[in-house]
């Protein structure tokens, strides 16, 4: 019964970003597994207790949707069908910031929950104590809930070294998030959007479509979105503003530090290099989300339970959904970074 259910969901999953629109407002999308569990008031086996997923999805999701609808009316925005479109429409408009953050939080939450299945083994929920800090890391190779698709496994190994290394990177990234945030497995194209638009890459890339060469892990914080091509330039602007502000303040105080002129020998800082490399305007496709926010584990696992929660999330990842989300892999004979 459950199995066929999952299969149904998988078929629809690739176009999963729909928060259903009725006339000019959104309603909470339907996640079949959660709906079914909620009817029988069952626990999400191996990950959440009934009250937790009820709070996480049904209550919080409902609240986000309500707020979003109110804001849309208030700001007289005509909502598009697709939540993704709404995000890219509002991301660069400060006056619509609340609409943006509500829609992106909703998108992230939905994406995370849709990528989960029930674990094979039950887990007894308990508030873990401070002994968790001293827990010795498991040094064995990952054996539970590994993806079955050979092509996908191969791509993972090519990008991260091995499945174990991938799991380690994913869970470490999630564990390191201090506040609200999500860790993503994403597919990264070889070239940026802007270079696709300027015809330069037409030499190598006839269709002018981004080609996906490697998988990577990234974090977003609060209501952040994965896709670089729509958020590109935001951080750069922010940094420029901050720097200008700093200089103005120093001028006022008369404590301005003499800037050394950039000569031709100037190598640039690590930050600058990182900046141009990491935020490089690429159309990134999300494949798997791991929500590492406190609200996800505080109720069932306690303050010290983050590691255990993340281990459990790994056991609940529905790899068949992730495989459905995969773009076609492009294996280049040579790479241009």
């Amino acid at each position, binding site marked *: 019964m459950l199995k066929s259910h999952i299969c149904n969901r998988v078929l629809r999953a690739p176009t999963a970003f729909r928060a259903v629109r009725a006339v000019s407002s959104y309603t909470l999308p339907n996640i079949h597994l959660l709906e079914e569990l909620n009817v029988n008031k069952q626990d999400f086996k191996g990950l959440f207790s009934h009250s937790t997923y009820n709070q996480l999805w049904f209550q919080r999701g409902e609240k986000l949707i309500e707020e979003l609808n109110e804001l849309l009316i208030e700001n007289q925005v005509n909502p598009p069908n697709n939540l993704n479109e709404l995000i890219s429409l509002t991301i660069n408009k400060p006056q619509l910031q609340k609409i943006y953050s509500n829609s992106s939080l909703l998108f992230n939450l939905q994406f995370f929950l849709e990528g989960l299945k029930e674990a094979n083994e039950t887990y007894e929920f308990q508030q873990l104590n401070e002994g968790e*800090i*001293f*827990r*010795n*890391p*498991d*040094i064995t190779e990952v054996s539970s809930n590994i993806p079955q698709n050979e092509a996908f496994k191969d791509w993972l190994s090519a990008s991260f070294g091995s499945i174990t290394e991938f799991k*380690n*990177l994913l869970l*470490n*990234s999630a*564990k*390191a*998030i*201090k*506040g609200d*945030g999500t860790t993503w497995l994403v597919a990264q194209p070889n070239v940026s959007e802007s270079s696709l638009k300027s015809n330069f890459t037409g030499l190598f890339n006839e269709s002018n479509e981004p080609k996906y060469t490697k998988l990577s892990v990234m*974090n977003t*914080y609060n209501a*952040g979105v994965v896709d670089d091509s729509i958020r590109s330039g935001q*951080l750069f602007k*922010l*940094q420029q503003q*901050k*720097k200008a502000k*700093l200089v103005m303040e120093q001028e006022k105080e008369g404590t301005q530090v003499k800037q*050394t002129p950039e000569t031709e020998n100037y190598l640039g*800082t*690590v*930050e600058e290099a990182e900046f141009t490399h990491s935020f490089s305007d690429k159309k990134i496709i999300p494949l798997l989300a791991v929500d590492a926010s406190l609200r996800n584990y505080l109720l069932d696992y306690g303050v010290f339970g983050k590691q255990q929660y993340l281990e459990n999330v790994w056991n609940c990842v529905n790899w068949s959904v992730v495989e459905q989300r995969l773009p076609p892999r492009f294996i280049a004979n040579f790479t241009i970074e």
Partner: protein
Amino acid sequence: MKIQSQAATVLERTSAYLKSGLLKNKPVWFDVVANHPPDRDLTRVPKTLLNSSYQDPMNRVKGNKTRLSDQELRTKNNKAHRIPKLKFVEDELRNLFYKRHPWEFSRPKVLIENEGNDNTQCDWSHMVQFNKPLDGESVVQRTMWLLKNSNRDLFESYDQARFEFYRLRMEEEMQSAVSREESGMFGAVFPTTNLQHGVQQEQVFVDDWAVLAAEKTTARRATAISKTAESKDATKSIFEEGEERSV
């Protein structure tokens, strides 16, 4: 009582005193020394002076001997005095670990301890410690704990400790990278890194020095040029003379 110079005979003398009744009770060390008597006379006797004073004046070597030779001064049987080398497995593990992980040396380490017994506050049934950062020493101590408290042999214990260390180090590095990124996203600006700041501080002095150095260099060059001009004149005259001669 005559002052006794021969410390090695202390046992004989004490037993004689006991026999004669001069000492009534056996000293506490008596049995111990009797069981483990000193196997050699540890007192050093200035032999040659004794010899020379009682030697037959006819057989005496030419001139009086006033000091001992190097050979005679050299400590004989110095193995008895040498402090034995202390050997620990921990040291070998430390050597091995730091040889394989040389970059671990580049991490700063606090060597000051208040009581000198910080290690006793650690519980090595786990790798993470409250009062000690993760480093090579953690691997050594954890290996020793595993060796004593689990069925693993030395190599297995070391590998277990080492891989636990790798996992924790990866986690630690990710923590710092993410908090940096996180604060960047919340608006933090890192105008200069620590290294860059150092270079900037240094640059102020380098600039001053550059001006000074330029002056001195021009001055030195000027003197050097005038000197070469003089010497050129001198060589020229020699050559001219030579030419004249050859002609």
